[in-house]
């Protein structure tokens, strides 16, 4: 369970939000909303531990994430504006490196399977640079299929995806939530998720 209390973040010399407090229980999806520039990305990066908040505490299962450090990262998966894939490696190689770094030990078949599920059959061992923007994003999203992490933090995961891919991603998110996972996401599009509990957090005035 992720527990945030009295959070304040500044960027440059502007306070984006303060006294923010919320908790995300298993089986919940938290949809962070707000206008452009309201600090959604900033909040998500703070939740990942990439950015140190001005004040406040972020706790994972009761422990501050600063203290947990690497252990927190084992339980968490972040998906940001950037895909985080190497364009000179193939989809398979990218996934394999990611899995080893995450201390997962999937066998090869799982990796191929994940890419196939993402609709990338036949593209698995091509260097990802030859794929289109949306296809690259699909490779990156394949990590969602392999990950054991209970907490997913997704920053605008739907951009650049075509409708097929959007549907697939929604299905993945719904399944994760249904499996008692936690998802925190931002998106400007509407997310018609049905299962689980959906909470909304609105940033900015």
């Amino acid at each position, binding site marked *: 369970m992720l527990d945030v209390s009295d959070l304040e973040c500044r960027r440059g010399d502007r306070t984006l939000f303060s006294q923010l407090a919320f908790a995300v229980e298993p089986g919940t999806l938290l949809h962070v909303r707000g206008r452009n520039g309201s600090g959604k990305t900033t909040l998500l*990066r703070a939740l*990942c*531990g*990439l*950015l*140190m908040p001005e004040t406040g505490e972020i706790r994972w299962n009761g422990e501050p994430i600063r203290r947990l450090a*690497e*252990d927190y*990262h*084992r339980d*968490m998966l*972040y998906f*940001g*504006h*950037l*895909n*985080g*894939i*190497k*364009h*000179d*490696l193939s989809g398979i*190689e990218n996934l394999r*490196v*990611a899995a*080893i*770094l*995450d*201390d997962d030990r999937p066998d090869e078949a799982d990796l191929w399977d994940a890419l196939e599920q993402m609709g990338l059959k036949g593209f698995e061992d091509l*260097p990802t640079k030859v794929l289109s923007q949306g296809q690259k994003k699909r490779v990156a999203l394949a990590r969602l299929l392999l990950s054991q992490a209970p907490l997913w933090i997704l920053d605008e995961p739907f951009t650049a995806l075509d409708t097929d891919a959007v549907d697939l991603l929604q299905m993945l998110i719904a399944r994760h939530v249904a499996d008692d996972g936690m998802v925190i996401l931002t998106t400007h599009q509407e997310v018609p998720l049905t299962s689980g509990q959906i909470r909304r957090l609105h940033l900015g005035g």
Partner: protein
Amino acid sequence: MWRVFLCILGRDITLAMRRRTDVLTTLFFFVIVVSLFPLGIGTEKQILRILGPGVVWVAALLASMLALERLFAADYEDGTLEQMLMTPQPLALLVLAKVTAHWLLTGLPLVAIAPLVGMQYHLDDVAVGTMVLALMVGTPILSLLGAIGAALTLGLRGGGILLSLLILPLYIPVLVYGAGAVTVSAVDFADTQPYFSLLGAFLLLALIFSPLAAAAALRISIE
């Protein structure tokens, strides 16, 4: 841990092999810079022999530094670095793996080509041998120190030249002892021993501390 180290090492070497010319680029930069001096200064053998060690070391400094500019840059731009920060692995280990790969790909070739360059400057065999040895010990230090600078300047405009500014001054001890060893070897090879001990000590220190420093710098830069 070993598995993770090898994974990153392998990844970076695979990436470099997919772009083999990038590796050659550093090498040729080194050769070109070395070849420019005789054109600017004159080609008298006596003078070249005095210049040789200094020029080779300065060129090695510059080549290694410029190559380092890209050490984290590619990973930063495509977001893989961000992801590495969020894996349950100690960041310093990942940094060390990346630096090792980088040295194998850019430092080692410089060492290998140094004898050729020595020939251009009419250095004798002992001097060339000393130079190769000194580069062998010295270039990893350059890579390790440079990694800190590369982490600090990550994503900043004017990366290459800014990095030089931060790192070149730190390279001075390596330059002084590296070039010094070669100069001294002209008299007696045995005299070079203290130079090598010092370089070795630097290397050890750099191996221990700079991955930690670079990891800390990365955390700051990525915020």
